[in-house]
């Protein structure tokens, strides 16, 4: 029974070959793979026993899970029924309490070394890790324990990937990212607050298809989704290039879809696929909805200055700084001026009258 392949399972469940290939094609296009790869994806998926996925939720808001449920290709139901075995996931799993913990332990035991560990949420190290516990076990401890048997770790969301909101200054609980703790496992970061659903599923699909993680950038993000900045792919980019900016919300520029740079858009420094993949099955995305990108997939974006301050504008109170500096300059300058006047007056006063007799050194 356990040895049934995916394609066999699908056929049993009345999923047509065509439907299956459609999914494979969607996966391929999402990951920017050539059509030639579709049969390979199909072959890989067909062979697979649904891999076990253990999803640990730490200091999180469940937004990442909510985002996952919005995935339309593959769908959440497709994913959990056909492609993965989601063996532990607080928000979705039926079992609770000991039952839930047993499910986790069983999945680990049965799939040791093979399961995928997905983490959302940061891990608090303050107060001995007591700031967050599940079943009486600290997040830190649980992460280490589950990571040990994982084939790979997917840090979903900016909290797990980079520390996220809990790590925002002053980081009250000493929150850290998964990669700050686990050093000996392949980790792929899927940041975003939350991440784009198809990006989460796309990474899982890539792993299922090829048995390895997609190519990652220096922040361990899959290049295929995080290789370009929002700004570079933004449909409003031409307005930026033309120097046409919305000056405030609901002004003429805003209505015409001009660039939101001046309203604080962090698109230029944000690497994510929002501008191309869009959200909610291509319905829209923040910039399309008239609000600048807040940079939610970038490390420490919470502390990167005000969301409504243009990237080129300092996020401190420049006016006050100028006044302070002006006052300081006037004070130092006044002191220097007094000194200069004194020196100058001294030089003029001490200046002796010169007669022709004083001109020659020899004289």
């Amino acid at each position, binding site marked *: 029974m356990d040895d049934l392949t995916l394609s066999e399972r699908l056929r049993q469940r009345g999923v047509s070959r065509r439907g299956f290939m459609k999914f494979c094609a969607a996966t391929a296009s999402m990951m920017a793979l050539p059509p030639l790869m579709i049969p390979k994806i199909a072959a890989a998926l067909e062979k697979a026993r649904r891999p076990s996925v253990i999803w640990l939720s730490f200091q999180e808001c469940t937004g990442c899970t909510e985002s996952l449920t919005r995935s339309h290709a593959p769908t959440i139901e497709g994913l959990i029924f056909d492609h993965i075995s989601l063996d532990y996931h607080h928000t979705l799993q039926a079992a609770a309490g000991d039952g839930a913990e047993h499910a986790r332990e069983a999945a680990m035991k049965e799939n040791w070394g093979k399961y995928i560990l997905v983490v959302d949420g940061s891990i608090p190290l303050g107060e001995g890790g007591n700031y967050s516990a599940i079943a009486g076990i600290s997040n830190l401890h649980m992460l280490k324990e589950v990571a040990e048997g994982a084939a790979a770790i997917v840090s979903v969301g900016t909290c797990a990937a980079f520390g996220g909101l809990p790590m925002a200054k002053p980081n009250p609980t000493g929150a850290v990212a998964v990669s700050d703790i686990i050093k000996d496992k392949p980790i792929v970061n899927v940041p975003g607050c939350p991440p784009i659903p198809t990006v989460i599923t796309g990474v899982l699909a890539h792993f299922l298809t090829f048995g390895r993680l997609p190519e990652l950038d*220096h922040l361990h993000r899959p290049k295929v989704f995080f290789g370009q*900045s929002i700004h*570079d792919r933004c449909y409003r980019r031409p307005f*930026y*290039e*033309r*120097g*046409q*900016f919305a*000056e405030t919300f609901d002004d003429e520029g805003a209505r015409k879809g001009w*660039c939101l*740079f*001046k309203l604080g858009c962090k698109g*230029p*420094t944000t690497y994510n696929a929002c501008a191309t993949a869009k959200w909610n099955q291509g319905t829209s995305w923040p910039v399309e909805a008239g609000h600048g990108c807040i940079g939610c997939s*970038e*490390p*420490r*974006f919470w*502390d*990167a*200055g005000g969301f409504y*301050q*243009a*990237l*080129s*504008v*300092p*996020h*401190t109170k*420049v*006016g006050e*700084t*100028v006044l*302070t*500096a*002006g006052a*300081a*300059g*006037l004070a*130092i*300058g*006044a002191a*220097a*001026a*007094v000194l*200069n*006047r004194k020196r*100058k007056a001294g030089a003029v006063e001490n200046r002796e009258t010169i007669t022709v007799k004083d001109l020659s050194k020899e004289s």
Partner: protein
Amino acid sequence: MDANELLAWARGPGFDIALIIFVAGMLLRLLEVISLGKKPDLSAPRGSGVEGGLRTLLARSLPRKAVFDREPLRIINGYVLHLGFFIVLFMYGPHIALFQSILGFGWPALPSGVIDAVGAITILSLVAALVFRLNNKVMRFLSTGGDYVAWAVTLLPVLTGYLAYNHLLLPYTTMLAVHLLSVELLMVVAPFSKLTHMFSFAMARWHQGYKAGQRGVES
């Protein structure tokens, strides 16, 4: 410190520090100059000093043929450099946003493509300025370490801005942070280098022009 932290620092404390040094330093420098005073001219005026001061303030921006004919390339390059710098500084949308945040008002931006091209030209012009400085015997003779520092801190913002805009060399965020830091370096260095001329040139022109105006001579 990762790129985002660096950028946050450059947009926060870094900018504040630089701005304080720039504003306070420049005020200090200007007050140092002004405090030395100037005696009134008792000779019978032939014209208006104020008129002459204002005229020179503007007219000196144009070269005299006598010297232009001798050094056309250097003078043209000087224009390209200054105009390029000003266009990039004052006509690029994101820069305007910065001035808007300080001044409370903005102005229309030029298309980024124009800024990009002007930026490239400005960089070339700055490189040319260095070549002139190294090759022209007068400039080489006059040059001190300060001249090369001033050149470098002027080039860096333009260069890093260009690299950032075109996504060259470093990841954008890092390059943007480096760009801001280079601007801050410029702001820190400016009051203590010949870059004070950005303000003191006006005083200098005014003084010469005022005197010329009083005498009814051209300047």
